[in-house]
């Protein structure tokens, strides 16, 4: 089966209105994915309506790592937003449930963020 990606590029300023529109149309929030690029985070918000997956995508520059929370529209979004905050270093403003950085207990802070060390290389047992 082939999966075509329906991605709409938006800005952080449009995020709340676009997500509210998705909610009004009856879409289910499927996931929020953050990816660390060269100079920004790429956030993808995925929604499902009757089996069709659509996405909103925006970039958040490292220099201004703030985005508004959508947990006021989709209550379950606080889980994804706390995850983004803890693992990537994004500042999500206005979360309905804010764990203040304690959602994930990791020894490396913001392990998926731009300043995090690379994943450990493979270790082999001595022959």
């Amino acid at each position, binding site marked *: *089966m082939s*999966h075509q990606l329906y991605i709409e590029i938006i800005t952080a300023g449009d995020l709340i209105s676009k997500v509210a529109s998705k909610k009004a149309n009856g879409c289910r*929030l499927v996931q929020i994915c953050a990816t660390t690029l060269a100079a920004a985070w790429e956030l993808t918000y995925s929604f499902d309506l009757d*089996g069709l997956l659509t996405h909103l995508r925006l970039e958040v520059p490292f220099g201004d790592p703030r985005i508004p929370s959508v947990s006021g529209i989709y209550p*379950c979004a606080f889980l994804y937003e706390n995850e983004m905050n803890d693992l990537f270093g994004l500042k999500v403003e206005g979360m309905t449930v804010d764990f203040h950085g304690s959602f994930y207990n990791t020894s490396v802070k913001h392990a998926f963020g731009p300043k995090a060390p690379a994943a450990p290389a*493979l270790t082999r047992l001595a022959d």
Partner: protein
Amino acid sequence: MLPEPVHLDLVVEDERVLEARPSIGFVHRGLEKLVETKDFIEFVYVAERICGICSFIHGQTYCQAIEELMKIEAPPRARYLRTIWGELSRIHSHLLWLGLMADAMGFESLFMHSWRLREKILNVIESTAGGRVIFGSCKIGGVRRDLSAEAMESVRACMDEIEPDLRRLTKVFLNDGSTQRRLRGVGVVTKQQAHDLGCVGPTLRGSGVAEDLRTTGYAAFDEILVTPITSQEGDSYGRCAVRCGELFQSVEIIRQALKKMPSGEIAVKVNGNPNGEVIVRTEQPRGEVVYCLKANGTRNLQRFRVRTPTFANLGAMLQALQGCDLADVPVLVLTIDPCISCTER
């Protein structure tokens, strides 16, 4: 109750829970970051180890995503074998959950009977795939192992043997007075709440929403019809009833897959590297799993992101815990069939 590594801070007044705040992160392994060092072929082994219970379907979903990126068509026989192992995985998972739920209710003998039946499924999985928990049988382009005619017959015989046992077991879960008192009316999540909270799987279907990703036709499901099993109660009993119904549905799917199994090769060769972006969803025992992959033409993926079903259902668990009796907390935690190792990756 066999614990998952989740810490719940409960605010209680007398015997009533006012608020629940979860703490997770105790088993976060950073598996998504491992794409930086493991190439896309060997990453199948990492994907399979995200969870021990949904192991096979994790591996299958990853392989499907890479195959989608690289325009690889797995052979029909491989798709049927994946379907059989996936449904065996589902039966195993639901029997494990039934046992844990019985244990949480203090019904120890029912717990033991559930896991005794689970052992039969694990024996079949071990004899066909080589491992009881981590199958290691799925690979990009197909599967690693085939089923001989004798193996297929043994799987068929196991389904015939286990079905009456499953009927006796589920009869107790659904009709016994003590289980009904512990499950009925406990943790009600309405249809609208389930949709708004982003629930998936039996948690969603237990609230009356007929969504099951097997209807999208991946693996052999384009030729094997699946009708979502739902319950209108929306409580813990409804979710239990859905899982009980899915046991028999999986038995029937396995029978159909064995009957329709095509002949031919079980894998195709994989050349080159993946490039592009794909989002693939499949139906794990706990619900919808979403794999987001981004590749840039090199041996290592640029981004690997998994949204597991328990992550989506945590919101429903927290909703159900608000206002519940303290004694119902174990049942409500288990009602979403939590898998924290899946959630944290």
